[in-house]
């Protein structure tokens, strides 16, 4: 997959398309007017973050099975890319929120879930920084990653359903309207490529970081 670059070009093309056409395509007139275009970007970052953290979770599980340190490396980089997307999602969300709700941050279960997720994964990085021995660090951070991911998933996916309607879409009974099925057909032409584009971007970033790490490791071996 490293030699293959067709999907990277595809991802780049999709994102470029999303950025340009995101501003041109017709959108249904709702009370939030033109800012609904943010849907193409903000939701994409959320999906990217989610998938990255899930990849990290899977690789932590795989590490605990075979104790192969390469998988721990992938888990770490996936978490870092996930945190990046998380911050981007929060920033785009804050810009959107200041227009829609009047304030950059409001009390809502989904926003709390996003914030807690960022805290949890930053604590993961702190934990990794505090252990010296590589095997031990990999093992302990894998355990923490699995533990934290499951608790976070419960918080982020289940709690908003139960808490009832909140401000952010997709809480309580309001889950459906933001999904593509109910989007206007004109928006759908940009939404799906945009989502795919963001996810491909995330995977590309992840792969680049992993390759950098591997080269660093090889350099260290050569020099020592």
């Amino acid at each position: 997959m490293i030699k293959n670059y067709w999907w990277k070009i595809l991802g780049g093309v999709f994102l470029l398309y999303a950025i340009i056409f995101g501003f041109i395509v017709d959108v249904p007139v709702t009370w939030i007017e033109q800012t609904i275009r943010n849907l193409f970007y903000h939701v994409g970052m959320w999906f990217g973050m989610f998938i990255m953290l899930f990849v990290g979770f899977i690789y932590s599980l795989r590490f605990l099975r075979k104790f192969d340190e390469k998988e721990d490396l992938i888990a770490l980089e996936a978490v870092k890319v996930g945190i990046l997307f998380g911050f981007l999602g929060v920033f785009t969300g804050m810009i959107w929120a200041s227009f829609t709700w009047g304030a950059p941050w409001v009390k809502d279960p989904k926003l709390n879930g996003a914030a807690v997720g960022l805290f949890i994964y930053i604590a993961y990085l702190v934990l990794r920084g505090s252990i010296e021995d590589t095997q031990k660090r990999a093992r302990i951070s894998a355990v923490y990653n699995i533990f934290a991911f499951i608790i976070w998933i419960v918080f982020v996916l289940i709690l908003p359903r139960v808490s009832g309607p909140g401000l952010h879409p997709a809480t309580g009974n309001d889950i459906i309207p933001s999904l593509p099925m109910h989007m206007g057909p004109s928006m759908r032409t940009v939404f799906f490529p945009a989502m795919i584009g963001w996810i491909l971007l995330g995977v590309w970033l992840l792969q680049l970081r992993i390759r950098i790490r591997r080269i660093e490791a090889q350099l260290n071996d050569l020099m020592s």
Partner: protein
Amino acid sequence: MLGKEIKYLVGKEIRLELKQKYVINGILLYLVSTIFVTYLAFEDVISVEIWNSLFWIILLFIAVNGISKSFSQESPSRQLYYYTLASSQSIVLSKIIYNFLLMVILSALAACFFILLMGNKVLNMSLFILTLLLGSLGLSSVLTMVSAIASRASRNFSLMAILSFPIVLPLLATLMKVSSSALRSPEWAGNTGFIVILLTINGGVIILAFLLFPYLWRD
């Protein structure tokens, strides 16, 4: 086999604690002084939300202080001895059970003292007691697991705090929701969703701890 080991280990923890009384006395003093400070800080009658949030924040700090030492109290050589004697799952389950009992006692004392000083705002007492029980179990299992992780990482107390707060937040948020509805109205309706979540989190965390702890214990 597992049950007998767990029973014996829990008994061991209780007896150790009764002999030394180190943790219990420290935590009781902490409990009393923090509740007393909040009593001094608020002169007027306080609202339900403030009551709720203060209570749970205090309980959270008590829990973190009380449980953080559970893995670092014993010397490494003694822990190696336990490793040869008992299976790791029974060790983690016994610690969770012991910390749960400790938390039940501490939360009951905290609740009584808090109600005494800050006024009784609880309208649905049975729901509140259920919340305390579920909260004790949840806090105990989550914090025991995090304490195990932090004790393996370094002998640093602040790491325990940094790790535990984000992970405890979901549990604490749910507990506060249920507790605030217990304070507001004497009815039970509308809370079942949250209680199910609490039970799920508790059960899930215990199962996770059961599965993941052997990887930590190998040192």
